[in-house]
């Protein structure tokens, strides 16, 4: 057991890969076994990850479950893992959503089942690895590896212009992350120049001294890599395409986990490495985030395709998270982290529902639906809860995150916060309007007459998400308790930089005078 806890992160990272070897001998045609086995394996993985939660020590910002081995000593690259309050929940989200999306695709994925489950498990490994890595090189490797399975998932099991979307997705993120790699390596070399040590250890790289101008350039380099992933306005156009064409499981993972990497990257790399640039650029990035909030909401209103609507709503929600992160107050960053989870949970759930509707009606056009509520009360109820969570109805999870973000950001950026807050009105407009047109009113499409309600498997798929919605809504303390110390440390670190920065600015200002 000691061993298990000590190397838990490695176990979590490599368990899916190992489980692929369990799946390999299974005959391609035994789709049932493949599906069940992979689902069970991902459930085991999820249960393992719960140990992280249980053994995670509250009230400390220090990294936990740290593992460190030499990897490429001549570069100073190491196999260095560890989690804090932020990555803890992102890993939990990853394992949960992988389980959920595997379970959800029993009906959706009909061909190449074996390849599909293997790619999903592989993707899980890379995602967890990215969240757990504290070594820049390791992080970057996992980060790029992630694209490969995702590319295939969109390209092979997608609908419509799937290859176009997959290529667009890969090109966007790849071009962003190559620029990011340049920035990271530049910092790495600067650190070498200053200390004479090669190291990719992020905690040591934090201490690199970089001049203000250079920080700006490097920050923009890193920013491009992360902003594409989030995606921040105007880098978002890959998202609707990728989401719309991807299979349900792909959309869930894409929205639930992959988008989080951008924010995580800012939190772990861009801001602490280049704090001054972060302070200087924060208002501009927040403006982009707020534009994203409104823009996503506005565009969602007029969407005719269900999935595209949910995809644009993601843009809107991620804008909130960026606002909270760059406002750099303890409250707002807490809110952002909670909102990261919320977005994964509620948008993931929305995609699952869109998938279920699609499986039954073979269409995603809003106008083809209507009156579903009459036929499927369980689906209606759960769908409604998810919609409301996404709208940010108090008592559900979305509210806690949005409210913390807004109330925390208000002090530093009152006008922008107010503008962003108006986004919650439009969230209600587009989501409720969509819900009304899809679920309420009278049945217009004859295909809806034979609409089946959710079966047990689908209920089990959704249930953990719905439970989390209520849990975070009514009792978010187990989450906040673990996030708060990390965020507190982050903000105090930033404030220290900020104080130094203001002193310098004052001095130069005086000398100019």
């Amino acid at each position, binding site marked *: 057991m000691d061993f298990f806890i000590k190397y838990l992160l490695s176990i979590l990272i490599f368990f899916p890969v190992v489980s692929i070897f369990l799946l390999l001998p299974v005959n391609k045609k035994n789709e049932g076994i493949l599906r069940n086995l992979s689902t069970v394996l991902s459930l085991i993985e999820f249960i393992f990850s719960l140990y992280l939660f249980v053994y995670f020590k509250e009230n400390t910002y220090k990294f936990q479950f740290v593992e460190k081995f030499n990897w490429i000593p001549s570069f100073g690259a190491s196999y260095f893992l560890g989690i804090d309050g932020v990555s803890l929940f992102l890993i939990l989200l990853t394992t949960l959503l992988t389980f959920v999306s595997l379970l959800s695709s029993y009906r959706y994925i009909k061909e190449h089942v074996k390849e599909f489950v293997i790619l999903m498990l592989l993707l899980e490994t890379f995602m967890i690895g990215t969240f757990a890595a504290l070594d820049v090189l390791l992080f970057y490797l996992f980060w790029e590896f992630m694209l490969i399975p995702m590319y295939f998932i969109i390209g092979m099991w997608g609908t419509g212009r799937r290859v176009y979307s997959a290529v667009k997705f890969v090109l966007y993120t790849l071009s962003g992350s190559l620029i990011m790699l340049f920035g990271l390596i530049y910092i790495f070399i600067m650190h070498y120049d200053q200390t004479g040590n090669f190291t990719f250890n992020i905690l040591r790289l934090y201490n690199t001294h970089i001049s203000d101008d250079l920080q700006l350039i490097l920050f923009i380099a890193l920013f491009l890599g992360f902003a594409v992933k989030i995606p921040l306005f105007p880098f978002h156009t890959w998202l609707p395409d990728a989401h719309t064409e991807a299979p349900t499981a792909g959309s869930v993972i894409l929205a639930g986990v992959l988008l989080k990497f951008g924010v995580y990257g800012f939190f772990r790399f861009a801001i602490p490495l280049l704090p001054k640039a972060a302070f200087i650029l924060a208002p501009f990035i927040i403006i982009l985030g707020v534009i994203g909030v409104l823009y996503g909401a*506005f*565009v969602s209103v007029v969407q005719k395709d269900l999935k595209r609507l949910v995809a644009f709503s993601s843009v809107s929600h991620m804008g909130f998270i960026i606002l909270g992160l760059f406002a750099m107050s303890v409250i707002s960053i807490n809110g952002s982290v909670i909102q990261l989870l919320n977005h994964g949970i509620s948008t993931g759930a929305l995609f699952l529902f869109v998938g279920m509707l699609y499986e039954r009606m073979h269409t995603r056009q809003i106008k083809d639906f209507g009156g579903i*509520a009459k036929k499927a009360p369980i689906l209606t109820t759960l769908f409604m809860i998810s919609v409301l969570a996404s709208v940010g*109805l108090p008592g559900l999870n979305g509210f806690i995150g949005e409210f913390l973000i807004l109330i925390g950001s208000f002090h530093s950026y*009152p006008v922008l916060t107010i503008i962003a807050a108006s986004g919650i*009105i439009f969230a*209600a407009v587009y989501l409720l309007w969509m819900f009304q047109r899809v679920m309420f009113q009278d049945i217009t499409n004859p295909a809806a007459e034979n609409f089946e309600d959710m079966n047990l498997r689908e209920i089990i798929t959704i249930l953990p998400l719905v439970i989390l919605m209520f849990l975070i809504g009514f009792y978010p303390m187990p989450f906040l308790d673990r996030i708060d110390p990390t965020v507190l440390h982050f903000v105090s670190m930033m404030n220290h930089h900020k104080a130094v920065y203001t002193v310098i600015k004052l001095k130069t200002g005086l000398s100019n005078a």
Partner: protein
Amino acid sequence: MDLKILITWLIPLFPLSGWLLWGLLGKYFKGLSGYIASGFVVASFILSVILFFIVAYSHGFTNTLYPWVYAGIFKVGVSAVIDRLSVVMLVMVTGVSALIHVYSIGYMQGDKGFSRYFSFLNLFVFSMIMLVISNNLLLLYVFWEAVGFCSYILIGFWYEKKSASDAGKKAFIVNRVGDFGFAVGIFLLFATTKTLNYEAVFTAIPSIPPYIVTTIALLLFAGAVGKSAQFPLHIWLPDAMEGPTPVSSLIHAATMVTAGVYMIARFHVIFSYSPVASEVVLIIGTFTAFLAAFIALTQFDIKRIIAYSTISQLGYMFMAVGIGSYTAGIFHLISHAVFKGLLFLTAGSVMHGLSGELDLRKMGGLYSKMKTTAVTFIVGGLALSGIPPFSGFFSKDAILADVYNKGFYFAWIIGEITALMTAFYIFRLIFLAFFAESKLDPGKHVHESPKIMTIPMIILASFAVIIGFLGIPPFNESLFYNFLHIDFKNAYDFAPFVNNAPWYLLSFISVLAGLSGIYIAYLLYIKKAVDPERIKSIFKPIYVLSYNKVYIDEIYNFLIVKPLLVFFDFLWKIIDVKVIDGAVNGIASAFAGFSVKARKIQNGMLMSYILTLSIGVAALLFYYFIR
């Protein structure tokens, strides 16, 4: 745990468990769920009454159930404040809810969404209770939105009807607009005071610059405008009548819509320290009272008439809180809850008897066929018109007297005119529905409602008669004032009394206004001394304006909704697809074009490859020389 704390948390627990029970297991209970749900609310009511007496004979208290959101300095718990204001509200909310639950058993009999109905009704009662007892702004905001959600879901209860689901959505979104202001107010409040706890906020308020207090108060008031359907956000309430009538009665008359008034009374410290904001409250309240009454004059849908009358009466309440007469506002809130709830229930009974008919032009002569309904309706109508000794008289006159005595004459005149119009339109309704000659379909079978519906009506009617007597002796010696004003002791007296007009004089004017309204209605619709059609043609423009609800919906649609939709479409189709994607694809196609050119170099001829290679080598060597 202390007994009173236990009671405090048991009150919301009953309806909450009801919601979970019907929500999850509704289909196993079927018909029974109505009775058990009502039982739960009755239990809450009994506990509320007990709590009322505990507080009345000792003093208020606060209690925190569990820490809810702690992030940095942002610390908010799930906590309750139990003082006289909240117990009065509790008793009112649970009492009216209990009666309406019972009534609903009859009204909703046979509906296929029976359990669902009671589930959400219970959820609403839970949210309303929590709204009333919450001890910080965040919790208040949560349940502020939660009641809005219940209202949304219950308005759209018959979701197959497009109009119903449209109305629900409209209610939710319009409320969200108000809530947006409310939320920003909370942000500002937190940014200035660093706390959201009532007690701490109120202590901090006097030391905050007045302009900030005013901003906060106005933003909070925006929430109240949305929730309590005041101009310019009143448009959702008439449409909300698409919901089942008991819902209209409970949510859109008695409880939820009055939350705005309760909120201002609860935050009397903030509002009283900002005379400007209070002035705005008064102006909006007065204007809304007049506007809604004006619209109600010409409507034919009985539920809509009552809905507009609700808006109008809420305007009175805002007048009261706008001049700092918080007890008067709350008193009118309570009495209005009783008589307006009653009016809706009786309207529902009429609908029930006429199988869903709402149009006044197709009614008439119902008095003989449904006596109980008619009598209780008239009681409610008299209370609304402010005829003594019915409750409306005491509560409305308390407000109008205060308005006069505090020197707001213009508001007072408008108030009196509104009172006249109020009496007119409600008796126009009564006369047309119950006394004028019948215009019913001859084949239609009209029947009195079952006992389970009439008994709550009778109970409410009797309360509508007796509850007003809490308001004697008039002014600041009344029972109600003495009980409640202790909670408002921290208010800043920004509008002192300037007159001391005797109550009988003011009451006389009000009663005169009410009676003349009734008399005009009598002349027009019973005696037919003047043909209503003639008046209609004389005042044609005004009539058209009133009949079309002053075109506010159309104006919104034309000025806001349409342009926004066009703009959104533009954003998506032009900005997103053309500009951004176009830029990206443009870069891509530029590369593609370049590579088409570049491909010509690779013509597949080995010769030229070698040639190029040699040129390259030569050039490279050359570079080394010049270096």
